[in-house]
């Protein structure tokens, strides 16, 4: 009797809700096919209009990643340091190469690369892992890869803690005001990562081997980019074979690593021109990725 009384009350409160004046009308038919520009515009508009959803998804993601391990967020600080240690032992100690300040030299590369790697990994799975949700509710699916990439930013921010610690404690002579421009390079990298994550997340719905493939491609990409070595090392090779030099120039990571290294290790201005070109290229790539995503989005609920 008591329980019944309670639900009377609850029902009364539930019924007394604010009414909304607008009643949207929607018309759905596959004969309506928006053009490419319209699709990109729709994609951007619906993502921006769902900022709160993205914020919730990011928070949920971080909560999960931070709480299900013993050390939680501390791992985000330790991870890049341990990876740096591996390369320092390999290159500086065993191969006896490297040079002065090599730990800081490679840390400039490991930090943004780990961010990129995590973004690609999480982004690829972002849509296919939400199978249940996609089949049950209509929402702009673009928020899934976007929130995965945004959550990765926090990861990167945690990585800045050991970077500053390392610089101030051991490499104070490398420190300059240029280090404050890191966010600028990070923004360009963010746009680039977003494009890659959005494209891969939609392809992965149809071909599940993207996850495996990208893991190997990323490894190649890292070692073939000037991360553990400086571009000067391949200068001779590039002079002999022009295509190698061209490939290096076309690789956005040549410019990302170069820019981070200039700001942190060399303490000088980055190549703004190159960064600008990478930014323009990334924006174009992002538009194409959104177009691809929006094109295949209607099939997600059927294929998953």
């Amino acid at each position: 009797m008591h329980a019944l009384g309670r639900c009377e009350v609850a029902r009364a409160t539930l019924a007394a809700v604010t009414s909304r004046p607008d009643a949207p009308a929607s018309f759905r038919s596959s004969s309506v096919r928006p053009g490419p520009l319209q699709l990109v515009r729709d994609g951007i508009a619906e993502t921006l209009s769902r900022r709160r959803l993205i914020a919730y998804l990011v928070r949920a993601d971080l909560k999960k990643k931070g709480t299900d391990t013993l050390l939680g967020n501390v791992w985000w600080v330790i991870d890049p340091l341990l990876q740096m240690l591996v390369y320092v032992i390999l290159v500086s100690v065993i191969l006896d190469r490297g040079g002065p300040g090599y730990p800081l030299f490679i840390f400039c590369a490991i930090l943004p690369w780990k961010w990129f790697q995590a973004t690609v990994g999480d982004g690829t799975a972002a849509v296919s892992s939400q199978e249940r949700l996609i089949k049950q509710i209509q929402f702009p699916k673009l928020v899934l890869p976007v929130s995965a990439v945004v959550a990765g930013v926090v990861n990167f921010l945690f990585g800045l803690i050991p970077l500053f610690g390392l610089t101030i404690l051991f490499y104070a002579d490398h420190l300059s005001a240029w280090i404050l421009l890191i966010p600028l390079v990070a923004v360009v990298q963010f746009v680039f990562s977003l494009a890659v994550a959005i494209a891969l997340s939609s392809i992965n719905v149809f071909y599940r081997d993207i996850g495996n493939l990208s893991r190997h491609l990323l490894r190649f990409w890292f070692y073939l980019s000037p991360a553990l070595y400086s571009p000067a090392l391949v200068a001779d090779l590039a002079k002999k074979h022009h295509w190698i030099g061209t490939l290096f120039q076309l690789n956005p990571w040549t410019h990302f690593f170069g820019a981070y290294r200039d700001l942190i290790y060399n303490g000088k201005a980055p190549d703004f021109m190159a960064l600008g070109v990478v930014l323009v290229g990334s924006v174009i790539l992002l538009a194409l990725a959104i177009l691809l995503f929006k094109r295949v989005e209607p099939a997600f609920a059927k294929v998953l």
Partner: protein
Amino acid sequence: MSVTTTPGATTGAAIRVDDAGVRYSLKLTKKQTVRDSLVRRIRREGDLHFWALRNVSFEVPHGQSLGVIGPNGAGKSTLLQVLAGIITPSEGSVEVNGHISSLLTLGVGFDQDLSGVDNIRLAGAFMGLDHHVVEEQLEAIVDYAELGQFIDAPIKTYSSGMKARLGFAIATSVEPDILLLDEVLATGDAQFREKSKQRVKELLAQAKAIVLVTHDMNWVEEYCNRALLIEQGRVVADGSPAEVVEIHQAHSAQRRAAQLAAGVLAGAKPIPIPLAKR
């Protein structure tokens, strides 16, 4: 998703489905790797299609409660997915006037690791609700779902009844103009079922349109004022609940008889020969 907003409501109907069909490509629905896809291309396997729904037309005016019935795999859930905008029809069109809330399976927007409150917020955000509305409704939803002290616990610790109550509370609290329900009222205990029936009646009284997929014929006869029978993706009968339920029951009796006959024949084939006689 091709959703265009038409200026103003063109018809009085909440839902208008015009000759809609949903085609699945069997090539795509199989979870595949690049290797499978290449193999299939080399073997020149044709493009296999399957119509989950075809030539479906009906209208639901505001204030009507439509019960959709039919055997398993007939396309009932696909129909709800089309109405909810999750799937775009491959042919024909679907026109919807009003806010839709769908509760296709219990637990929409549910993140198992988040608390009940966080899930309410997440579900609200997924449904595209203004967050002020969600915050306003939060207490009412928690009350209605009767979660008590568990509201801050991660929902992976909830019982299925609790999840059912929470899901129903979220879906109906948003004051939808159109409510889509898929077999949700079968879950939960008797008390919850009673409560959800009450709520559906209230929504009906407020002239909301409801589309309900169910196997519970009593529900259809008692609370729907119209019923649709779907078999193999086609609308077989459309009319008053009593009539349509009767047709459905006649059809299922036929199918059972046919199955039984097939079963008897199949069972008759391998006659075990006693060892002693061999």
